[in-house]
């Protein structure tokens, strides 16, 4: 869990503390079971090849959920994630497993965000931000926007 952020302490341009993620084929199987997305494209490489995708890809919804965690970690328990959107721009490919529990070497993803606007409506203190996911090459593969409510010192 994160430290507590007050609305007053956040400025336009403030960067959200990045969240580092490593996706493995094992994690995709866990995600399939936990989310209910059993599309073989995410665990069967022969199938992925047969439909022209080439290899197993990471579920868009798992990348979405990483970005949601970026925000829920950042706002903490007193903050509220009010709006969230993202678009899947490019595919991401998981690492293979080296041992039964350890991922092989390979790509690491970083969820990032930055504050774009702060405002007050009624007694609620809002922050808008842009959020994105960078792959191991530093390319953005998923991007979006979010609105959060932070606790205020003045409240």
């Amino acid at each position, binding site marked *: 869990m994160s430290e507590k952020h007050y609305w007053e302490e956040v400025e336009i341009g403030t960067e959200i503390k990045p969240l580092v*993620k490593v996706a493995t084929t094992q994690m995709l199987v*866990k*995600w399939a079971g936990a*989310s*209910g997305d059993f599309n073989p494209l995410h665990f069967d490489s022969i199938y992925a090849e047969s439909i022209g*995708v*080439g290899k197993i890809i990471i579920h*868009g919804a798992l990348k979405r959920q990483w970005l949601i965690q970026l925000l829920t970690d950042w706002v903490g328990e007193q903050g509220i994630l009010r709006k969230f959107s993202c*678009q899947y721009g490019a595919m991401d490919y998981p690492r293979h497993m080296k041992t039964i529990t350890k991922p092989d070497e390979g790509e690491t993803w970083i969820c990032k965000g930055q504050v774009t606007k702060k405002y007050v409506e009624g007694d609620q203190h809002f922050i808008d931000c842009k959020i994105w996911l960078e792959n191991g090459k530093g390319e953005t593969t998923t991007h979006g926007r979010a609105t959060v409510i932070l606790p205020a010192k003045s409240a």
Partner: protein
Amino acid sequence: MLPEELKKLIGMTGDVTVYEVEKGAISRFADAVDDANPVFHDTEYARNSRFGSIVAPPGFFGWPQQQTRNSPLNVDIPTELMSAFEHAGYPLSFALDGAVKFEFFEPVHAGDILNARTTVRSLRERTSNGRSIIVCILETTYHNQSGTLVATQQSTFVRGSSGIQQEGSDNV
């Protein structure tokens, strides 16, 4: 041209799907994200938090009570739309998740029963590299057992016509 059987579904709302939000399912979902936040896992911790009990990560609404989820998109797709896609030659195997938009109004708690209603907001036929694709936008509302709207979800996905290869990086 958008096939007639799909065109007539624009604006339709599917039957209510009842979702059960179980504590164990929440914990497994958060675990699959590798999110150790105790409000998703720890009953005692959550009781003393501002939530008062375990909550679901925003974006998780539990599992349907009645059927096994067969959508590859974590979206509640009306059965009428599912079959119309198949009949019109846009099979499930050529589906690609494009975008998602949520509004969260109230936390979803372990033990909640949610009613999901999905409306077909738009269906647009396009050609991408000589292939026919349909861009579909659905809107889902989730109400809890007290009748409170807890969240809305807008999902954009692409279905491709059969006999073609899936386009990898179609931006929606």
